[in-house]
């Protein structure tokens, strides 16, 4: 009997490193997009808190931590990353499985901000873009979600189909930054 083998979006592409900066794939986990129904935003936030210990994040913010996080991804849209969504959420919003839709990578190391500065037109300096801040923006020509998840660590989400381009773009920027730092 044939078997169904799972393949992650960045299979065979990651991890890579250049200088002090590393890019690795975050192992696939459950990802559920949640959009509140009319007038249900507060109730949804309460339900999220009760079930998963995290409030609904404001725009450009993420709540939670590694393993269980809620990231704002757009107007009336957040992504629950990690836990299986509690059934209690369903009354308050539209839940959609997105576990396979995104390539999710972690960029970390001293020069991570410098690498992203080559690709992203948004101010990601630590003083401005703090831990728990997130943004929907462009990475070169790609639409992405970027969240600061550590002092010099970022989570980047791009469409699964664009995983190869994502890795290529970030790797090119990593090499450029590493080459300059080497001098």
């Amino acid at each position: 009997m044939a078997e169904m083998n799972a393949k992650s979006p960045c299979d065979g592409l990651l991890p890579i490193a250049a200088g002090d900066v590393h890019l690795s794939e975050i192992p696939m986990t459950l990802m559920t997009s949640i959009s509140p129904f009319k007038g249900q935003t507060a109730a949804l936030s309460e339900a999220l808190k009760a079930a998963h210990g995290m409030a609904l994040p404001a725009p450009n913010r993420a709540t939670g931590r590694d393993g269980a996080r809620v990231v704002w991804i757009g107007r009336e849209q957040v992504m629950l990353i990690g836990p299986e969504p509690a059934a209690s959420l369903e009354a308050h919003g539209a839940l959609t499985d997105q576990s396979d839709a995104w390539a999710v990578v972690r960029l970390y190391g001293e020069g991570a901000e410098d690498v992203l500065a080559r690709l992203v037109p948004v101010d990601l300096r630590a003083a401005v873009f703090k831990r728990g801040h997130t943004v929907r923006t462009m990475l070169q020509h790609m639409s992405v979600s970027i969240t600061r998840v550590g002092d010099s660590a970022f989570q980047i989400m791009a469409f699964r189909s664009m995983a190869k381009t994502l890795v290529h773009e970030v790797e090119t920027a990593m090499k450029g930054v590493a080459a300059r730092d080497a001098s």
Partner: protein
Amino acid sequence: MRLSGKGLIDRTKPVSFRFDGNVFQGFEGDTVASALMANEVKLVARSFKYHRPRGVMGAGSEEANALLTVGRGAAQDPNVRATMQEIFDGLETRSQNRWPSLHWDMLSVNDLAAPFLGAGFYYKTFMWPKAFWEKIYEPIIRRSAGLGALSGAHNPDRYEKAFAFCDLLVIGAGPAGLMAALTAARAGADVILAEEDRLMGGRLNGETEEVGGMAGADWAAGVVAELEAMPNVRLMTRTTVTGAYDQGTYGALERVAHHLGDRGGRPLECFWRIVAKRAILCAGAIERPVAFQNNDRPGIMTASAVRTYLNRYGVAPGRRVTVFGNNDGVHQTARDLIAAGVHVAAVIDNRRDATDSNDYPVYRGAEVCNSSGRKGLESVTFRSLSGEDKVETDCLAVSGGWNPSVHLTCHMNGRPVWNEAIQSFVPVDGMIPGMTTAGACQGTFSTHGALSEGAAQAIVALDTLGISAKVTDIPKAEDAPYEVAPLWAVGGKGRAWLDFQNDVTVKDVKQAASENFASVEHMKRYTTQGMSPDQGKNSNVAALAVLADATGRGIPETGTTTFRPPYVPVSIASLGAGAQGAGFAPQRFTTSHNVSVDRGAPMIEAGLWYRPSFFPARGEKTWRQSCDREVNMVRNAVGVCDVSTLGKIDIQGPDAGAFLDFVYTNMFSTLKVGRTRYGLMLREDGTVMDDGTTARLGEQRYVMTTTTAAAGPVLRHLEFVHQCLCPQMDVQMISVTEQWAQFAVAGPKARDLLNDLVDDDLADENWPFMACGPIKVLGVGGRLFRISFSGERAYEIAVPARFGESLFGELNRRAEALGGGLYGMEALNVLRIEKGFITHAEIHGRVTAFDIGMERMVSAKKDCVGKTMSERPGLSGADREQLVGLKPVGPVKQLTAGAHLFEVGAAAVRENEQGYTTSVGYSPTMESYLGLAFLRNGRGRHGEEVVMVDHLRDVTARCVVCDPVFFDPEGGRVRG
């Protein structure tokens, strides 16, 4: 000639490089210009139009003469300023715009023909015959006049772009810039200090003056060291801020690796977009030459450049130097030369009250009026009240005063104002929101003034950001007043150059004025003064002073031309960094991509996606053979095709059904759970937007499919409709295109293939045509839709994308076991044409539901987006071009897409056009080419014959008009 013991070069590090094939020695810290000068190479270039011998005239990015080509082969870099190119071991440079060599340039005959080559020459001479312009005149002109050339080959160099943010951007690191940056940095602000040179310090590196009791260059180095140690400061050397844009955004070009032999993986250049809350322009000033007869000979340069070569590079630009000018800078130059042991032949000062000297002869109230020497200066002639005199000299240092570098302040259409005291244009406040100016670019020419203004402007800028900065002690520095007498062009015969880069002379400007190109903008365009890489850095003010004189106006009334970005030339490669080749757009790959490529399928682009065109089997030599086989396979057995690229949108909420009723022309609120329906969507203007199937997965949940190309636009449209047209509806939507890998399994054996792959019995009573629902695929949760784009019994099976590759392989194995296999886009296209199914080739943005025969799908029971507009007169009726089928009936059996239709016997001209073909393909099923077309009143003309004419491919075929559904019009096969 190199002087001992002077300069900021590292004499322990000799460097050798090539210029025009010859090897020269210099030191680390040298530019090509300074190193060639040390080797007494004077002739380095030929001029743009007249091919006159030219030498270095400046010491920075304003250099107008010494443009070189750097490197060889694909990546050769033309028009590099010798004054900006740092030397490194192995550097290769060549002179430009000469043939066969710099010393024997055949085109220097242009110089003899100069009387005919003045301003407006092209416009007057090459008028006739008209047809000669493109083929003969222009190519000849382009070859004989010009700068360096690109290689024409793909550039393998890597470029980079980057973004930066700061509280304060300081542009230029001379005394004003250093002081501004230091003041702001000490106050804790985030500061970016950008400097064009490799070395910060500006004029301090080229002068002998002291700052704070030490050499100016040492003071600058001390400030740089302090700034470097501060975490809130980013120092950017070799970085030219090239433009000021909206909302505090500045463009800056960083020359990352032009100075390195071994780049070690660095990009060649990086183009920065710097967003600054405030900016201070400390761009300094550019010394201007004076126009006199033959003022362009090698050896004639600006006085400040002479001092820079002397003091910074330890190079004497000549052995007997003459200095000429209208301000005290000439005396400083003479003193520096004497101190360096260089003979000063004469100082010629046009001011009658100029100071005299015991160290060198001073001619007061005198002007240089001519020069001689073929490939290098030999003597100059000067004129005073006592008549003309001649002095032997091999270098003339000229100063006509200083032009503040106001360029950036003008990038948002502001105009500088004339300052009579300094005979220059200066910026006024507010020309660029958020930017102020300090130092020489503001017209403050003393070092003390620059230091104080830099500090003061930093305090003001930070204050507006709520950061309080302390007044830093201003170091003691020179504070002499700047005294200058007007001196633009010395009268006399012959050509006196204003714009060295474009070979524009005083005579040209006067001629423009006499031909009534009297506005400064007209004069610029008529003479080309101030154009191209130079952007008028050297010549602008002098040229308009000459124009003012010629037109009897004052300089302020004449005004300046518009300074536009970029301040220095910026390579397109750096602006578009990362977008070379395949980097132009992201690539989207399906989960089946590797399997398809392994099977030898040529991949074609569909939007950003890559999809297999066909899957060549052993022995197949043409795509048609593969396509025909794949079509037959689907019609007779079973085929598998990746359809994941179609847009999929998850739509949920209590009002999901009502929302779909509003965006689709037909009803979806009545669709049963577990069923799928074809839907048609109109734009607001009533034309067809997209089509596709939508499945109802639950009471409040639908999943919509869109065409591949319209996935983004349709989701955007839905968001628009929800947010703007029916915000009261309780509905949410999100793309799930990427979540699911979805494969079409089509053909009479499709059910046999799937039956033991899924956990459900696919008997038709459970899974009739248009059924849908959740299903387990080899134990994995998936979805099944019984829909068909081929007219055969078909299913689309979806699993989470991680399992896509695995399932695709398994489907292929099972299909092959049943006599089927994979099929690509070509076969998919033929299959749908046989069935008359439309794609965006048909719904191309100009057709209505009526045109495609779907007007009955616009429900009369409800309103929908575009309905009212689609009912406008002219959008339906016999005059419309309507969708029909075409089959060839004449001797030519081929049809082509994009061809036009004519009545039999009518001339194939635009006025007779009856319609056009949109999709064609050879149908192995019908053993004929089939076409879909739009034909005027087409539905009423079935059975009639028309002529298809493709003027581009030269194909003419007689066709019969028929129903667009060629195959199985009753639809029996799709139901099984």
